[in-house]
């Protein structure tokens, strides 16, 4: 379970990104956060991932007070529990697909056999086996997105956060992403999606669509 309790985030120059937000996400739910750019959706995701600290209030992820603990504890918690798909994917262009996907496992010192088995699983799941050795800079937008999703899933996290994952994709590729979401949802993962793409608002397997406006939860 994920909880934001009376959480506010004020960036420099007094930009209020979130204003005393109270929100709860249950385990296994797929939730869509909708709203225009700058409404506070990405801030909610970053707070849940522990990438930033709130200005006031508290963020709890699986009973862990993620906003209270030091950054190095948050990093290890994130490594075990959270997969994050960034809007611009944040892949390393000069590395291959496989190397990018394996990056989150580097600090774990796993055996080669374990690494290979995990890599093969996600490559297969997200249908990018044939691109394994291709450099990321030579991939199409859809392939880059699937690589980013595969990387977010390499640790089999219970929570997946995706920030505008279809912003750079055409409709066909966005529909492919919806299939991926369905698959992840069937695996009982908690998925929180921040998007303003209307394609996601009417999906039958979405549990909740939450409107975020001016740093507040509207519905």
């Amino acid at each position, binding site marked *: 379970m994920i909880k934001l*309790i*009376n959480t506010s985030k004020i960036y420099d120059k007094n930009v209020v990104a979130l204003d005393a937000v109270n929100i709860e996400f249950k385990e296994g739910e797929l939730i869509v956060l909708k709203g225009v750019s700058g409404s506070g959706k990405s801030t909610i995701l970053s707070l849940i991932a522990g990438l930033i*600290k*709130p*200005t*006031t*209030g*508290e963020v709890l992820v699986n009973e862990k007070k993620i*906003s*209270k*603990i*030091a*950054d*190095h*504890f948050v990093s290890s918690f994130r490594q075990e529990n959270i997969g994050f798909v960034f809007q611009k994917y944040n892949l390393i262009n000069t590395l291959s697909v496989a190397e990018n996907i394996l990056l989150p496992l580097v600090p774990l010192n796993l055996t080669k056999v374990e690494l290979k088995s995990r890599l093969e699983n996600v490559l297969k799941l997200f249908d990018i086996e044939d691109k394994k050795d291709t450099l990321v800079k030579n991939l199409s937008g859809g392939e880059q997105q699937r690589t980013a999703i595969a990387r977010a899933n390499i640790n089999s996290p219970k929570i997946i956060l995706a920030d505008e994952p279809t912003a750079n994709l055409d409709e066909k590729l966005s529909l492919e992403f919806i299939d991926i979401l369905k698959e992840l949802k069937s695996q009982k993962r908690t998925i929180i999606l921040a998007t303003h793409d209307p394609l996601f608002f009417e999906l039958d397997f979405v549990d909740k669509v939450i409107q975020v406006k001016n740093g507040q939860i509207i519905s």
Partner: protein
Amino acid sequence: MTLTPEILTIYILDLLFLFFAIIAFILSLQILKSWNFEATTKLQYSLQMKSYLGSTIIKYMFYIKLPLFLFFIFTLDKLSFILPGAMCGAGVVNSNEYATVLLFLKLINLYLFAYWIVLDKLDMQDEQQRYLKQKFTIFIALFTLLVLEIVLEYIMFSSIDVKDVVDCCGTIFSTNDNTYLSKALSLSPRILLSLFYMNFSLLVLSAIFRMRYIFSLLNLLFIFISLLSLVAFFGTYIYELPTHHCPFCFLQQEYSYIGYFLYGVLFIGTFNGLVVGFVEFSKKEISRHYRVSMFFNLMYIIVVTLYPILFFIRNGVWL
């Protein structure tokens, strides 16, 4: 005022330390005044960020201060070349009334700074940051000692006059005077060595039976007994001179800089031993400290013991 490149380096570093220490001091006061881990207020989140900044500043400041002690000793030794009468750092230390106090203060600070680093490590390993208040409170006290050290350092170096003739170590550490020092130095080797090896044997026993407070206390004792036996007995075999009792000369090239090694090993060994009595470590951590302490103390014992043995093998007599 005497200004050598080494003294200038120390002054510049002192200024930097002072600058960062003042920042850390202000942060520490703010943290101690309002810290409440459970609070979810703007102030608490800002204090959390300040505590990382403060801890990082203090930690790196102390990390640098530890090896700088050796640089200080090196500077004293180097100054002996320009002070008439001085043969090593001992002459420099004896050249004015502040140097001895400074040297002892630096030694105490060395152990206290290292203790703070251990405390900080523990705090960083604890999600609830239970050691946070303790470590910043201790820093407030250490700040005072650090400032005192910097002030004394400035006064000490600025009162060195290269025109004054100073005593050499042979006179300072003579066994013919009626001072406490000369009485200590003229202790019978039999008593001294018995104390030294008995102290170490007790260290081994207390480590085996995990008697942490006794182990810690014995390490404190080991510092004094080791230094005394080094200067009064083992040193004479390093110098191969029965009347020479100087704690500085073996820092020189002539003696392969063995003093740096011996003092370094003794510090690591005794510090790791002392700290087990002061900090509640996990089982794994405490074992690591016992092991490190015993390893370095043993290394110290082996090296100092080898000097008289090798001398006897080479010459067939004891000094």
